[in-house]
């Protein structure tokens, strides 16, 4: 019954409930967003081990920030903002270490059946070649965020987001346009 009630609540209401110590509310909130966030991170990194680590970091950030959470923005925007920050930190670490994790072989057990699809593989390759900012903007748009929300998450101007999206789609068209 409690779970059913939680399912009807908004993300913000659930987060406020968790802020008051209601762990069932967080369970519901987590189940609502876990797969979307995991997919977003996977499309950015394509590495299950890294994605798990980033997802865990993002959710731990949410849990640790719960006592000070305020409903100034949508919970989903806030969650992806935290995840985006983790991604940016990850790219900086990667660039500093001069390692190319994306080129490391993916464990066979972690391969998603969808990734084996040829078109998806081509798209992932094309997205992987995009600059980080354009890739983030494109993937966030695929998650259903508006340009305004993407600007909030990536902390840049809305016009910049528009420009990044335009270049990202142009490049995708050039690479896999015929297939789409």
């Amino acid at each position, binding site marked *: 019954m409690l779970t059913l009630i939680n399912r009807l609540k908004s993300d913000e209401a659930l987060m406020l409930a968790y802020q008051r110590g*209601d762990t069932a509310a967080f369970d519901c909130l987590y189940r609502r967003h876990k797969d979307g966030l995991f997919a977003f991170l996977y499309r950015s990194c394509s590495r299950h081990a890294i994605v798990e680590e980033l997802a865990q970091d993002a959710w731990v950030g949410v849990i640790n920030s719960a006592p000070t959470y305020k409903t100034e923005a949508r919970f989903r925007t806030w969650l992806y903002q935290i995840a985006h920050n983790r991604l940016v930190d990850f790219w900086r670490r990667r660039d500093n270490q001069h390692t190319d994790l994306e080129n490391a072989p993916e464990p066979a057990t972690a391969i998603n059946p969808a990734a084996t699809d040829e078109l998806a593989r081509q798209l992932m390759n094309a997205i992987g070649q995009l600059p980080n900012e354009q890739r983030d903007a494109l993937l966030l748009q*695929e998650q259903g965020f508006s340009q305004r929300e993407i600007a909030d998450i990536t902390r840049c101007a809305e016009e910049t987001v528009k420009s990044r999206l335009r270049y990202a789609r*142009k490049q995708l068209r050039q690479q896999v346009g015929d297939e789409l």
Partner: protein
Amino acid sequence: MTERRQGPAEGKLPLPSPRSPQQLDDKILAYARGNAPERKFFRQPRWIAGLATASIVALALFITEPQRLEPDFRTPAPSLQENLPPDADRAEKAKRELAAPAATMKMSRSTGQAARMDKYKNLADESLPEQEIAADAMAEVVEADEERIHGATQPLELTLSAAELKKFTSEELHDKLQLYADMVKKGDEERARAAYQQLRKSCPDCALPDTLAQAFVTLLETEPAAPEIKK
């Protein structure tokens, strides 16, 4: 006009959508349960207590204020003695001394009280010594009760409210004037005048003459022997 080429639709790219692994879910949910903020069942702002107190005070005032402004007809009116200014003490004293009916009433009450006490004592005389003691105790209780009851109402004339004093009938006024006339006859003219003035003050609606002499002339004129008074 440039030709715009149709690109991939927003949110419809056939991208892989892996699901979060169960192992990660369990780990994160366990962390969330272990680090959940402290549960507060009765979390209330600090101003709630103040607001509650103010509400109770306001409610109490709302209930009691009309009763203070409009005295209930069941509550006794303030006594005449309390309303009198200090200057009227002398006149009040004189009036109290002249309150012959009240004195008579007190006498009758005392007589009844004494009769009841005698009755109890007689009962005690006829019975055993233990019963005698009990009867004495009962008589003392009765005496105390009588004193409490009659003591409170003893200054009957003085504790009459202004509203009651306004209800003097002509017969009552006549009786009072007759009483004052008797006092004058007995040579106690000064007290009679004071008592009359007090009567006038207590009954402003009675349209009593200014002086006792005028009152005798106007109100006791039918009497065959209205006393003469020095002017």
